């Protein structure tokens, strides 16, 4: 079988697998977030945390919940790393340095999983399991909770209540992430992924690090986290041994962001509304995939930095998926991608992580973009703009604008400052356009909470640790607050009934308007910067 055929077969299998679970899993998630019953385990959690699961929150309280929970998460994760010497299974890996600990704590709480450390030599199993893996679950559940609050904003009328953050968080973790991650951890072990509490095995006199990989691998992909247990991430044979695990991991990355569009359609009472979002996400995902695939296949050294067991299509598929979601796991060195291919992965992030984006974050990001697109589209049909029956006025546009502004702002400021700092040049492996791509990629990855690394840039200096940490935090929480504010003002509105004058948001015209907005906003914002990086490289 030719490489291309194998690649097409993988894409085909992936699409079929997603299509099979789309309805049941999407509807299941809708039931999770709309049901009124609490399981026994959940009741125990609520009793223990003194949460009244039947009370609901205003958007401000919901946001406070998200922020408070995340701050506590950062503090605990920071302490856990700094106090590693006191923990079992540390294998002599001492206290994590403050800069690394700060960066890593924010990184995992914000669902970024940017790793400025070498896991095998820095983190013991306790920090991995109690700290990083726990955040892999919780940060994913936070993203989904925020997305559901926004969906409720569209669904509900004349209320100031968006649901209960603690309930959404608990249910997302217990009913969605835990069972699916458990199931697929077993599948991955069966397919050859390592699961061991040893620190390493001796092979031909050389020690190769091992860890409880499979249990983290599943949630690493399912929660679109991406933080590897081993430094080589999914390029490592213990994390991703063969083409089957490669496909399973890609499936896991996509399954929640994709099926959430079904959840959305079900919750707003019109499945087509979800289909159109999925269509836009899918079209952009496929378009960039085609670019990366073609660029890599025709590159000067096509297999440089790629694993032979995945080949070009398997690498392109993974690279595209991991950057189009906010995952950031890698199975190839993105630094070795061609100018165009690397530009494609960068572009995926600069779209704002919504093709299909991270768990929850992808859905709320594309809904925010839909609000902006519908504002313009609404004007052009001569009505004050509305989307899903909610009017888009001053408050809604302001909230959506802030949500959209956050990422480019922190990304451009961060990378702009980094570009002129005297220490930067020495941190780069490559001069010129490729070096700028490395800087842009690092800040795009952090600001979008992607976490993948282009590599080729040494990010252990205090400046990088601190600035990337700040980019991750602001890139995560500014949009979340804005999205919840948007949800709040939407929920307070009465629903405008559909009439013949209403612009339908299920057809191709809206889809192209939305897709166009995603591309246009990214292009207009980043083309000048990209011209000096990937575009200059690609035109060489």
């Amino acid at each position, binding site marked *: 079988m030719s490489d291309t055929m194998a690649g097409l077969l993988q894409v085909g299998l992936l699409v079929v697998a997603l299509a099979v679970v789309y309805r049941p899993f999407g509807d299941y998630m809708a039931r999770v977030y709309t049901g009124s019953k609490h399981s026994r385990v959940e009741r125990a959690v609520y009793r223990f945390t003194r949460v009244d699961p039947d009370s609901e929150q205003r958007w401000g309280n919901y946001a406070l919940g998200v922020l408070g929970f995340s701050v506590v998460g950062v503090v605990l994760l920071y302490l856990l790393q700094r106090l590693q010497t006191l923990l079992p299974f540390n294998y002599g890996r001492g206290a994590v340095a403050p800069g690394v600990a700060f960066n890593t704590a924010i990184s995992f709480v914000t669902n970024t999983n940017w790793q400025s450390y070498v896991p095998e030599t820095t983190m013991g199993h306790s920090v991995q399991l109690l700290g990083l893996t726990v955040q892999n679950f919780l940060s994913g559940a936070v993203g989904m909770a925020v997305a559901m609050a926004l969906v409720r904003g569209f669904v509900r009328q004349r209320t100031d209540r968006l649901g209960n953050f603690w309930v959404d968080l608990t249910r997302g973790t217990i009913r969605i992430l835990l069972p699916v991650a458990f199931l697929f951890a077993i599948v991955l072990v069966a397919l050859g992924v390592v699961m061991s509490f040893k620190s390493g095995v001796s092979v031909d006199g050389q020690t190769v690090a091992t860890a409880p990989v499979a249990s983290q691998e599943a949630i690493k992909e399912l929660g679109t986290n991406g933080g590897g247990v081993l430094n080589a991430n999914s390029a490592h044979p213990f994390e991703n041994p063969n083409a089957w695990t490669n496909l399973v991991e890609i499936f896991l990355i996509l399954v929640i962001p994709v099926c959430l569009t079904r959840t959305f359609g079900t919750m707003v009472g019109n499945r087509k509304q979800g289909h159109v979002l999925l269509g836009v996400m899918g079209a952009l995902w496929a378009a960039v995939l085609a670019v990366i695939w073609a660029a890599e296949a025709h590159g000067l050294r096509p297999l440089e930095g790629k694993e032979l067991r995945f080949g070009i299509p398997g690498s392109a598929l993974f690279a595209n998926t991991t950057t189009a979601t906010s995952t950031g796991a890698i199975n190839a060195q993105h630094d070795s991608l061609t100018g165009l291919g690397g530009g494609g992965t960068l572009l995926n992030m600069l779209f704002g992580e919504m093709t299909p984006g991270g768990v929850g974050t992808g859905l709320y990001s594309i809904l925010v973009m839909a609000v*902006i697109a519908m*504002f*313009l589209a*609404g*004007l*052009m*049909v*001569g*009505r*004050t*703009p509305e989307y899903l*029956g909610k009017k888009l*006025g*001053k408050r809604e*546009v*302001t909230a959506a*604008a802030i949500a959209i*502004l956050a990422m*480019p*702002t922190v990304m*451009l*400021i961060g*990378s*702009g400052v980094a*570009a*002129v700092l005297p220490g*930067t040049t020495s941190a780069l492996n490559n001069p010129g*356009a490729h*070096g*700028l791509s490395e*800087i842009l990629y690092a800040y795009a990855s952090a600001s979008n909470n992607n976490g993948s690394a282009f590599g080729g840039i040494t990010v252990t200096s205090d400046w990088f640790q601190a600035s990337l940490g700040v980019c991750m935090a602001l890139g995560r929480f500014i949009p979340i607050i804005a999205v919840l504010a948007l949800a709040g003002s939407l929920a307070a509105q*009465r*629903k*405008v*009934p559909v*009439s*013949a*004058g*209403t*612009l*339908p948001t299920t*057809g191709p*015209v809206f889809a192209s*308007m939305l897709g*166009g907005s995603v591309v*246009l906003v990214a*292009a*207009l*914002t*980043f*083309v*000048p*910067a990209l*011209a*000096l*990086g990937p*575009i*200059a490289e690609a*035109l*060489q």
Partner: protein
Amino acid sequence: MTTMTPLAPVQEPKPLRQHAVKAGVFNPRQLLTSIPDALRKLDPRHQSRNPVMFVVWIGSLLVTVFAIGEPSVFTIAVAIWLWFTVLFANLAEAVAEGRGKAQAESLRKTKKDTIARRVTEAGEELVPGTELRIDDLVVVEAGEVIPGDGDVVEGIATVDESAITGESAPVIRESGGDRSAVTGGTTVLSDRVTVRITTKPGESFVDRMIALVEGARRQKTPNEIALTILLSTLTIIFLLAVVALQPFAAYSGGTQSVIVLTALLVCLIPTTIGALLSAIGIAGMDRLVQRNVLATSGKAVEAAGDIDTLLLDKTGTITYGNRWATEFIPVGGTPLDTLVDAARLSSLADGTPEGRSIVELCVTEHGRSAEPTDHEKTGEFVPFTAQTRMSGIDLGGRRVRKGAASGFVLTAETRRVVDEISAQGGTPLVVADNDAVLGVIRLSDVVKPGMAARFAELRAMGIRTVMVTGDNPLTAKAIAAESGVDDFLAEAKPEDKMALIRAEQEGGKLVAMTGDGTNDAPALAQSDVGVAMNTGTSAAKEAGNMVDLDSDPTKLIEIVEIGKQLLITRGALTTFSVANDLAKYFAILPAMFASIYPQLGGLNIMHLHSSNSAILSAVVFNALVIIALVPLALRGVRYRPSNASALLRRNLLIYGLGGVLAPFAGIWLIDLVVRLIPGIG
């Protein structure tokens, strides 16, 4: 003795505009005359109200300073064209305001200094009109100007309101009822009335009109604010992109000059829509005024574009208010011809629409003449009175009468005919010759021609029409079916109207209605767009958020279109503005960076002559496009009623795709000229 005059065939009265307040079409000369105003608007305090143009203003200042520092043809040319960009935006606003000022001027002429005859306990005193207070009573007689807005509390008079409405035909104003409101500045033509003043001086209807059309108190409408936020967001994004470009350029080894970076910024931010936004708003209000509609707020105009449900009074809107003769029904064996002759005779001198319609029917259906014979001209017309409830003619001993059934002694047969006509929603007029009843004329409501097409248009726009009528459900249904309205409310009382509006609004719909009576006031206030007729009471005018000076209830349809047009123009120009940026990137980025990375010269697909000519051409295009679009901003994007998807497709094609392509051609053409300038090429 009333002499008989020949009757014109019945036709819909057409308003004759003498000097209706309007601004006329856009004339390029207005650009020149508005230059002084545009220069005055360079004041930073004025500029700061428009975030997009304020950025351009600051950029122009910055570039000017740098251009003085290192003068060259290129730097000075960029500085000049950046200032032109600001100036052109000011010009657009000044032209729009200038048209409003012209209207205000024509209104101000009506604000003569009047002397009012204030009623006091002792009798009357003469005071200046400006000293009148609310609840003062003033007396106005024929030939005098009404000193302030108010309601007639005593008497009846004909009033010339042409100063306000442009309508030459005098109107009747009388105490009590729905025709009691008078406007300051209008002239009493006959009789004498006592008026209770209802507004303070300076807050009268004319004052409010002047303030509105001048745009002096113009506040940004909700949608305009939301759009401004979006435009500010885009501006911030581009500001970031351009500011961050300098360190990237420095890293790449080619620091850019502030002039070039500012030029790039100004080209990228949405200057086209930013420059024209306020002109679009002012022009929208202006288009309403040209149609003789005054809106008390821009918000109401925007809301008009969103209307879901339109409540239309049947009478006067859907049907000719006047009942028209449609059939002669003889009774008691009377030959039809006898009835027709008697009916014609009784109506020859009857100037009422009903009377004229009877003659019309005699002419068209029964071959009679509309002209009275010499003999007939000697007859004496007996006008309708409330007591007799009949009218007719006395001619050589014959007393021919037509009138309400209650004025005649009816046979059982006649009674049956009369009842049947009533039951069908018509009005029966009994015709008698010397007390002998000859038959009955059926007056029916006639639906205005073209209504069905209009309602179909409204349906295409997504607007549901509801006919409101006092008729019984059967009649209402028949007329509703004939006229093509979507729904009707029969036997409607004012509170029913109110309940209907509330019910629609409960469902999240926006409701528009027209009204004139005091009992319409609550419903007008409740509706989202309430258009009060100028002939209506001041209570109605206060309650609504628009006043139609022509008192034409079908005007609502035009108001909806203007509201939609206003929003479409904003959306289309925003799309155009943003779409323009693609070409500008292709012009400016290679110009900036080809020296660092020669391969980026490949992006210069327009083959612009040099870096300097490319940048200058983009700046010049960016400025000129503002002027080029002023007429469109003032006139508004054409709106054709159609469904939303088709509209969006069309506008995306014209302003989205057009916006992508136009600057490629424009910048290329400008470059052909600019490259000839010594020091640029």
